[in-house]
């Protein structure tokens, strides 16, 4: 089969690889009908997430048709079913899964020894990601083996297109969880840093959850325009001070809820001098991530407010003002998304027409164009916000 394969920093290729096979009774194989490139795939593209190996298949936003099921799937899936594959692989049986914390499933990370050394404890398995999270083959391919397939799936009802449901695999529940863990109240101002695909979904989620005011922060014009279309007040940080504007919009009190939909690769700009220093430290391996957004959120967030972090961080960060966070009594909530905790509810909202996540798709291409699209997405060329691949 063909698949997008990681060969090293900025080196993705559309290779011919072996077809996947059933390895465990709980496995299923799907023929991929749609998959997408995620912002966090760019962290892998830039080799900023540790423990990737040449030959790893990329992709964790995938859906398709079941073509083979293992004997242990117990009738939960059958050939011909259309499913979306959540990016977090979960067993549904361990203590964490029973609590709904699917992304930290205690069972599915097949490289626990590695994760325990780096993270202290193993977290759940993820598709198409680092070997710290199991090193499972990803779904930017013609076929995908889905481990723990009896639980790790979202069945797609008839009548919904791939484009409407594909993002249940990651960015829609990720944006939703980011907003939900803020416990948004009708009096709240929610500030969201980053108007990429996760930021866009977070904006829509905050609007659906009834925030008084949603403020979106970025510097890319088309992303700000899309954020505004979704009901957000926008701030272009290249044109104005984020802190001054947020204080102005909140009567000087600061937003109650701040969401970091940017993560480890904050935009490097002379208008944000700390990002220049962070970038230099990153190159000298003195720091893994550029935490500009975290610093700004801690500074501007209203005392006793909530900081929610769906953006991906990989390791060590520097100059984080914990003194401010402690004195202001801020609450931090973060983590990989517990996808299936939210998807029944979100699927219903799509079916009811409350939201159509396909609004974010700007480019649809064949799998063979994937390597080129990584660069187009990274460089934000051709107003690219979200790429869908059709194997």
């Amino acid at each position, binding site marked *: *089969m063909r*698949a997008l394969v990681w*060969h090293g*920093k*900025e*080196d993705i*290729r*559309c*290779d*011919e*690889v*072996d*077809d996947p096979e059933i*390895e465990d009774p709980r496995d299923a194989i799907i023929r991929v009908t749609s998959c997408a490139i995620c912002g966090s795939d760019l962290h892998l593209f*830039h080799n900023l997430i540790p423990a990737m*190996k*040449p*030959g790893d*298949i990329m992709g964790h936003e995938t859906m398709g048709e079941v073509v083979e099921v293992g004997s242990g799937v117990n009738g939960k899936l059958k050939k011909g079913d259309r499913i979306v594959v959540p990016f977090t692989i979960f067993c549904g049986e361990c203590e964490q899964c029973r609590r709904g914390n699917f992304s930290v499933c205690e069972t599915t990370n097949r490289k626990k020894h590695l994760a325990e050394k780096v993270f202290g404890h193993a977290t759940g398995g993820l598709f198409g990601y680092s070997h710290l999270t199991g090193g499972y*083959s990803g779904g930017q391919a013609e076929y995908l083996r889905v481990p723990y397939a009896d639980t790790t799936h979202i069945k797609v009802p008839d009548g919904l297109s791939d484009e409407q449901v594909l993002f249940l695999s990651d960015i829609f529940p990720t944006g939703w969880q980011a907003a*939900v*863990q*803020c*416990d948004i109240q009708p009096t709240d101002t929610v500030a969201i840093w980053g108007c990429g695909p996760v930021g*866009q979904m977070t904006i*829509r*989620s905050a*609007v*659906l*959850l*009834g925030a008084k005011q949603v403020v979106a922060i970025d510097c*890319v014009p*088309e992303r700000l*325009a899309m954020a505004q*279309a*979704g*009901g957000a007040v926008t701030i272009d940080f290249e044109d104005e001070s984020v802190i001054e504007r947020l204080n102005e919009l909140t009567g000087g009190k600061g937003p109650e809820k701040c969401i970091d939909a940017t993560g480890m690769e904050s935009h*490097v700009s002379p208008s944000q001098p700390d990002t220049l220093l962070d970038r230099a430290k*990153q*190159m*000298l391996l003195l720091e893994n991530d550029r935490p500009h957004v975290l610093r700004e959120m801690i500074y501007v967030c209203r005392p006793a407010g*909530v900081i929610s972090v769906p953006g991906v961080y990989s390791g060590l960060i520097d100059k984080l003002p914990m003194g401010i966070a402690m004195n202001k009594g801020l609450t931090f*909530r973060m983590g990989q998304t517990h996808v299936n905790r939210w998807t029944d*509810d979100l699927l219903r*909202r799509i079916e009811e*027409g*409350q*939201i*159509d996540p396909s*609004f974010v798709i*700007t480019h649809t291409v064949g799998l*063979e164009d994937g*390597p*080129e699209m990584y*660069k187009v997405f990274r*460089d*934000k*060329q*051709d*107003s690219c916000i979200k790429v869908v691949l059709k194997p």
Partner: protein
Amino acid sequence: MNLIANMMRSKGDPKIRRSGPSSLSASDRMARNLGWFSIALGLTEMVAGRGIARALGMPDKEALIRGYGLREISSGMLCLSIDKKAGLLSRIAGDGLDVALLYQGLDRHNPKRDNVALALAMVVGIGVLDVAATKLALAQHGRDPGPPRDYSNRSGFPGGVKAARGRARETFRTPADMRENPVVA
């Protein structure tokens, strides 16, 4: 390389049979090669600063040459990073500094001025390569010059933003583990 990659695969993981074209463009490869060249040259300048200064008939410039070595290594690291445009631009600036230094050595009283002329020719040659690589990188990695596409009609809410605002509050309750402190008075 695929052979090594396949040897590192976990049991059951697909192995590469045939590789397709890489996402690395010609400008990326050129930047990488210039980056490694820069690091090699920088290390040479730092380690053999005295010998280079003597060969150029400028023994008083030893410390400066070692400093330039450090600069070359920094430029090389930038070229190898994802900020390759900054790396290439810093190489062009460095070429200018090299030319300025070597120009001083063309003095007719310098017995080693032939060596200086040769070094100058090499710097100019590499400089041309740096400029070409930078132009290519700027063209390939920059945003399009025209206006962005119009996404102002992409609300994502089939019923409109107004109808969507607060819609989820009718049926959704924040789970207990994600609630904030209630108002106490």
